[in-house]
């Protein structure tokens, strides 16, 4: 194994594993897909995240984008947004990056299976929101017969910011998969999808309301409007709606306090929450 292990130091939760970069694939101007090889499997759940960075530089919370069966391989999409992500974007194949985790609650795939009576799965992703939700979509698509109808609504600002389009084409071929891709603005580029906000196709969904699981992830401004649209059109119980939230994180261990939403720590109790739980968390969608 090439990746150095931290054998001399046990149980210091701040020391990262060093993972070797296998592939660096720019997806858009700002977003790059990194595939890394970990010294040991993470055994993560969909929706969990890792702290990614370089010693001496810093760390950021980054969603896991690969499915739960990816073994020692881990995929992440990193947007160049600040110092740490800027430095990560300078890394090349065979360089190392530090990984700690997995952290957070994530999704339980059992909540979505057909044999638990779930007829419809709706997944709504805005912008980078597709990145964490991909870790949930992949295991569903890989074992499609275990799941009911899947409705994906995927929004991006412009065509050149749309992520994973090839993979989305493959998902479209699967039985009982309805996928709507939208952009806010075609911005003079080729676009074979629709134009509009992710709220627009919601009312057209054909759902078995009582047996629907709905998942939502996107920029902070998106949640209120999408939830309003869902509530206007469907009677889906709040405990069957999941939101995947974003907060600033420093430790990932439920200690540093930065990600706190009312009485819960996003890094520990989230970032995935059932909507029924947000009644008690007024800061969640703030």
């Amino acid at each position: 194994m090439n990746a150095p292990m931290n054998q001399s130091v046990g149980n210091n939760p701040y020391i990262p594993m060093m993972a070797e970069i296998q592939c660096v694939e720019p997806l858009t101007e700002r977003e790059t897909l990194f595939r890394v090889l970990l010294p040991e499997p993470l055994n993560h759940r969909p929706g969990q995240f890792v702290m990614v960075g370089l010693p001496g530089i810093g760390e950021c919370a980054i969603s896991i984008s690969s499915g739960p069966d990816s073994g020692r391989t881990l995929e992440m999409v990193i947007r160049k947004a600040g110092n740490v992500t800027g430095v990560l974007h300078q890394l090349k194949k065979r360089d190392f990056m530090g990984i700690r985790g997995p952290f957070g609650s994530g999704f339980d795939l059992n909540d979505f299976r057909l044999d638990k009576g779930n007829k419809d799965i709706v997944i709504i992703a805005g912008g980078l929101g597709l990145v964490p939700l991909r870790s949930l979509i992949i295991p569903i698509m890989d074992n499609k017969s275990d799941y009911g109808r899947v409705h994906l609504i995927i929004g991006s600002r412009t065509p050149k910011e749309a992520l994973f389009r090839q993979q989305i084409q493959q998902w479209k071929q699967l039985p009982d998969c309805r996928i709507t891709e939208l952009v806010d603005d075609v911005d003079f580029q080729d676009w074979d999808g629709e134009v509009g906000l992710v709220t627009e196709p919601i009312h057209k969904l054909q759902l078995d309301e009582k047996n629907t699981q709905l998942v939502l992830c996107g920029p902070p401004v998106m949640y209120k409007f999408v939830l309003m649209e869902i509530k206007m059109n469907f009677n889906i119980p709040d405990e069957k709606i999941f939101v995947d939230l974003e907060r600033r994180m420093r430790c990932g261990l439920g200690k540093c306090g930065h990600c706190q939403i009312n009485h819960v720590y996003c890094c520990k109790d989230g970032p995935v929450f059932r909507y029924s739980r947000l009644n008690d968390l007024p800061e969640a969608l703030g």
Partner: protein
Amino acid sequence: MNAYITDLNQIESWFFKLAEKQPFFLPIKTEGINYRFEKLNDVRENNEQSFPELLSYKPTLLPPGKNIFPDGEILFSYYKDEQGHYQFTQGSNIESQIISGIRACDLKGIHLMDAVFSDGIKDIHYLQRREKTHIIAFNCMTPCDEHCFCEAAGSLDFQTGADIFITPLVEENKFLLEAQSSIGIELIKTLTASECLNPVELKEQALSSRPAPFGRQFVEPIEQVSKIIHQYDADKVYQQYAERCFSCGTCNLVCPTCYCFETKDEFELGNDLSQGRGTKSRHWDACLNPGFAEVAGGHNFRADPAARQRHRVRRKFDYLPQRFEQTFCTGCGRCGRQCTTDIDIFDIVNDVCSSVSETVAQELDK
């Protein structure tokens, strides 16, 4: 039998004995009007002996728990070896220490921090230092000053977690010392004292001689306070205090139960402009700082000072109690005492309670 009776002179010379073996901290007066936990050996030259205020000092600028959670603590160091692989070493070396003269409120503060740092994924830096920290605490006989509200916050009689616990007795210059742990039993061996045969009785006598009520009291009992803080948004009250708040973070940084931190990664610049060696450290942070809840895209989840003030109050009386089933305000009075613009969590809590009873009364009228 682990209870002893002695006088202040004996306690003082015992402190000097203990200080020979390991760093020994106790509250010492500052150049001004405050107190600070300082190493006994450092102050020895100036203070020939005798600490008349040992058991009556105004709570220190920083609570003693900060000795276990130091600012700037190294979480790990690293270097890149010749193959370009990262090698890590644990944080700083941790040596044992005795902190003495800890008030019950601060003892509770440390107890609450123990709960926080051992919850979930353990914070070994805190826990290792805590294990090597020995505590000599005491029972307060009078409220320390006009800011104290420890009885109202339920920490006046807190005694858990001290290796040795001191109670000043009714008889002048007599003190009851109880060893509460094996380390306490070991430490007390060098004290010149007589064994106490009726500690329970003497202690009860001492405690019943305390003034009642002890310090400031909330307008509602503490269980009720938690419920009110949880149920009511009371934006108006928080807004009122936020108007004169500097968002300077003092209230957080001096609080015995504030433990939020920022991490800092540093490197030495190598000849090839790379980051060949460096450290990760953590620094006390404050949720009253405006940028505390800002995320990468620039969205700030608590941009409004009133929201930050509410967050602080709720953390102490609602949020953390939900997780740990204890009130996280110890009533030490530090935040109110040290706020330059005179914002006291005690007043905020009382105002929220009063505004709620007004609201309820108005609703009943309708």
